């Protein structure tokens, strides 16, 4: 940006550029733009994860509670070489939580037999006041096979905070209250790291979720 004074050379060549050359350059530019976006995604995560990939260095938090059988439960991320799909929900949830459980059950069923045993689903209730272990048992067994964990407050708030999960009680006119909550499912690998996050809207594409799970199963023993 220093040398020569402005001359008319470039000006005239740009001005003389036929419109169809400009149009062609525009098409090439858009192609390059979309290609670069794809390349950036691959650079960020060499495996094309369907969900949002974590940076590979994010440790999942452990927690303690009571499982659906009323037994003390301690979640130690990665323990026993297991890969865990963890989500936060509640049994009075009319749509998102049952669907999430059902889709995660489909994901498990779609895994090869040798990988199925290493994959587990854990539901942490964000409504400990109503979700007793008995109710959780009924719920997780009806919609699939998962661990239903009851954690009383204020420990629940800390666990939710550890995972970046928000939840709050919402009063409903003429009906029992509902809970608003983050609808993500977190995939934790066998070394205890958070690897992928799916929004519940992504779960219906079971094959793509299965591919993510298999990648994590195969890269974390």
């Amino acid at each position: 940006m220093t040398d020569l004074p402005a001359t008319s050379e470039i000006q005239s060549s740009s001005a003389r550029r036929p419109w169809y050359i400009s149009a062609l350059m525009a098409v090439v530019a858009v192609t390059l733009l979309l290609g670069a976006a794809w390349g950036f995604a691959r650079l960020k995560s060499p495996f094309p994860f369907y969900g949002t990939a974590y940076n590979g260095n994010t440790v999942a938090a452990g927690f303690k509670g009571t499982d659906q059988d009323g037994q003390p439960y301690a979640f130690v991320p990665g323990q026993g070489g297991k890969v865990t799909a963890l989500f936060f929900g509640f049994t009075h949830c009319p749509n998102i939580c049952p669907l999430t459980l059902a889709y995660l059950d489909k994901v498990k069923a779609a895994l090869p037999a040798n990988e199925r045993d290493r994959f587990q689903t854990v539901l942490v209730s964000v409504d400990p006041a109503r979700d007793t272990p008995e109710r959780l048992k009924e719920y997780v067994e009806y919609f699939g096979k998962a661990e239903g964990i009851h954690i009383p407050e204020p420990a629940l708030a800390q666990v939710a905070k550890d995972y970046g999960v928000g939840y709050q009680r919402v009063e409903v006119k003429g009906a029992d209250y509902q809970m608003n909550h983050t609808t993500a499912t977190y995939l934790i690998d066998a070394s205890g790291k958070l690897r992928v996050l799916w929004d519940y809207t992504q779960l219906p594409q079971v094959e793509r979720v299965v591919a993510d799970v298999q990648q994590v199963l195969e890269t974390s023993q």
Partner: protein
Amino acid sequence: MNTPTPINLDPTLADLLIPAPDILFLIPTLLAAGYYLWRFIVSRRTEEGRARWPIWRAVLFGLGIILLLMTTQSRAATLTGSSMALYMGRLMVLAEIVPPLLVLGIPRGIRINPRGAAARVLGILLDPWVALAVWAAVIIFWNVPAGFNASVVTNTAAALLPALYLLSSLLVWSVILRPLPNVQPAGMGSRGGFGLLAALPMMAVASVWLYAPNVLYTPYVNALCLWNLSPLQNQQLSGWIMMLAGLPALALAFIQLFQWLVELTGGDEVAPPT
């Protein structure tokens, strides 16, 4: 080692501005700001340099850099999934406020070797067709539901989209404000026409958001939103933000078009002495 950021559903402005460094943006921004500062200091040594690079240009550039840092290096950048309006507010600052400030900060009279690679690359990037196509692609592709959903919930564009808004809008504003006349042959009329066309994709998207009766983007359908806004309110607010953000560029386009009309009709000629 780190853990996910906890969500505060009622953040104040101070909460939103808590630093959250994003190296991908931070390093290029600091390098660009450092280069600009160095060249500005050098220019102060001569009378001619001071004349073509007045302090007000450096102030505008500095303001643009500060806004860029505030929108990309703060907690606000981590709350995309919790507020469409906040997300759109950030993108609009990056697209409609930062770029004109940065472009206005460029000193006049930059001399580029017309035979050099820089002139040729700029000649292509600042071709109105190229700038408009890239801008329209960013606005349209990443605002149709599939693209927008991907930008919010997958890793394909979440980190990239703010950069794309900034860079494509820099091209658009460079065509409109024409900081490098010797590689930008466009006259006032074509710049005004270009500005008008460039504003259309954003205005169209904003109108859809304002008048759509349903939430268009699945990640926000049942989202827990900041400040107790419903997802639909968030979408409508995003429409207002986008529309208002696009108005200055639209107004400038009309001014340029009218100026061109005045030139065309000889209205700017000096009256002959009587």
